[in-house]
């Protein structure tokens, strides 16, 4: 009852401000903000808010707090956002289980709650915004098959998988193998699980190379530990840029900062970004929709932003690539 009155009051104030632009306040709870990725997300969000806000007639004010990797601090931070009466709450959860309590609290206060990047494993939020890992693998594999076709090469690939308990790793493997089945240009010789452990990326790749000397390409479920793959390829003298006859064709996921110079140098042939810019763009779209009481039209797994395919030819020109600009 109290909240209804408060909401009505806010609505009344907003109407009084005139029809020019609707003012909304969006509260953001970062679990931590120590890495370039988080800075990139925040900058892109603010820029998108201005761009999309102008088009939608919404004026977004941001209230941002940081929990320093502490789930209980995050809960009290979100409590603060609720008492401040923000219009929408966005949170990147430190703990996918504990965030449920905060979602429930926001529901009770009738404030839409958007989980960002990390989903809640307990209570469903109003919407979830994240990356589309399945589409990421589909686009990379398709672009890679196109490349093999263009070069007239029969791609015999090693698949380095992530941890099979991680939904992203499973989605990426699924996407790659669907394209593999559909396209004659690529085939997978061996699947190597890595548990996301760089040492297993290295030794698994090395073992696969020794077992399959005919291999000429690899699909790598994330390039965060690309140097481990580099070690394995160096061992068999296959670490060379495109154009060199020793070149080993690499398709990766994410294009994280460590992989950018390797793509610029021609070692990585195709990657689909883990796209901070696209995530932020989608988040702002969802926030505006929710603030207007509209359905953001998410899929069953949430509003998932698709990454962009990048190749050595396009990496110099692609805009808003966080891993290139934020270091």
């Amino acid at each position: 009852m109290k909240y209804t009155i408060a909401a009505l009051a806010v609505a009344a104030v907003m109407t009084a401000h005139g029809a020019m632009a609707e003012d909304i306040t969006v509260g953001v709870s970062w679990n931590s903000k120590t890495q370039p990725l988080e800075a990139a997300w925040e900058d892109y969000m603010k820029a998108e808010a201005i761009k999309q806000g102008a088009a939608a007639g919404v004026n977004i004010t941001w209230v941002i707090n940081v929990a320093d990797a502490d789930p209980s601090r995050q809960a009290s931070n979100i409590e603060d956002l609720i008492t401040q009466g923000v219009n929408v709450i966005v949170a990147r959860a430190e703990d996918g289980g504990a965030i449920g309590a905060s979602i429930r609290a926001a529901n009770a206060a009738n404030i839409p709650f958007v989980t960002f990047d990390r989903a809640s494993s307990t209570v469903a939020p109003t919407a979830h915004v994240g990356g589309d890992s399945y589409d990421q693998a589909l686009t990379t594999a398709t672009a890679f098959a196109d490349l093999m076709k263009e070069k007239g090469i029969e791609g015999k690939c090693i698949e380095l998988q992530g941890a099979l308990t991680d939904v992203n790793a499973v989605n990426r493997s699924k996407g790659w193998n669907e394209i593999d089945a559909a396209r004659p240009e690529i085939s997978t010789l061996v699947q190597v699980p890595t548990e996301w452990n760089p040492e297993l990326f290295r030794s698994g790749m090395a073992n696969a190379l020794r077992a399959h000397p005919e291999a000429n390409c690899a699909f790598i479920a994330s390039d965060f530990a690309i140097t481990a793959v580099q070690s394995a390829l160096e061992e068999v003298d296959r670490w060379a840029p495109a154009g060199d006859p020793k070149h080993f064709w690499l398709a990766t996921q994410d294009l994280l900062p460590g992989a950018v110079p390797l793509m610029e140098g021609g070692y990585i042939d195709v990657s689909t970004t883990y796209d901070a810019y696209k995530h932020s763009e989608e988040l702002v779209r969802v926030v505006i929709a929710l603030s207007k009481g509209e359905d953001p039209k998410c899929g069953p797994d949430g509003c998932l932003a698709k990454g962009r395919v990048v190749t050595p030819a396009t990496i110099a020109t692609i805009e808003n690539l966080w891993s290139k600009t934020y270091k």
Partner: protein
Amino acid sequence: MMRTVLNNGFPILLAALVVLFGVLSPSFLSLANIMGILHAMVPIVVVASGMALVVMLGKLDISVGAIGFAGMSMAAVLIDGQGWSPLAASGVALLVGAALGALNGFVVVVLRVNPLIATLGTMIAFRGLALQITDSRVVVLPDAMRNFGNWTLGPVFFDVILAGAVLTIVHLIHRETPFGRTVTAIGNDEAAARRIGLPVGRTVFVCFVASGILGALGGILGAAQVGAVTTFLGKGMEFTAVAVVVVGGISLFGGRGSVFWGVLLGALTFEIIRAGLNHVGANPYFYQLIGGGIIFVAMYAAALKAQGSRLSD
């Protein structure tokens, strides 16, 4: 006869596995692959050498993976941010390992906390410390360090020689020195060791420091091989190290087993299986099932062996 099979059951099983993988995938028995297997074993052999000393005492140190991560994180930021040479930074990593090992030793010896509980706590704390040091980033190491990690002398990787030397030294210390025999005595019966005036506290403390230093060295060698420090460094390493030691026949109750053969056989077992599955292209969902199965078989064999020796008394 029964005794012989029990005592040598594991090496026999291992040999059978090698033959099986060799038949299924001929490249498995190539020199390059054997060298590759030894190369991949390097970090775990070093970490398990330290773990073996602690297990000989009848204790556990499950913070070794976190110590490796913390030590190498410190080295990584010194190299990446301060421009230190990898060698000097690695020295600092070893010092961090010694300091964190000393903290474990203090908690276990002076505060008398159960070692499992103590190092479970410090494992979480050290990992948190390491994440703080690197801001949870991936730190790419300079090429020089990665080149060192994969440097070869003829067909042999240099770090394999290093790990072999570490393992041999720890083995000789355990076998041939008063300190090492005191470790075994404590593992047999800590109360008796106290009664006859052996330096129990000092010995336990030194073992935890050694375990910390070797944990850090394992972290350095592992990071050098992959050329980066990631938040996955050393994760699960403590459990693999315990499993290696146990599979290698070193009793968790302490005082029994050979450091050299135990660590070597244990580490070979796990790496041969992993490499073999890689070679035959096994279903990815199979790996952990088989790893778990091996631990079970090894423990069961150890239990049978213990029963056998009791019956023959």
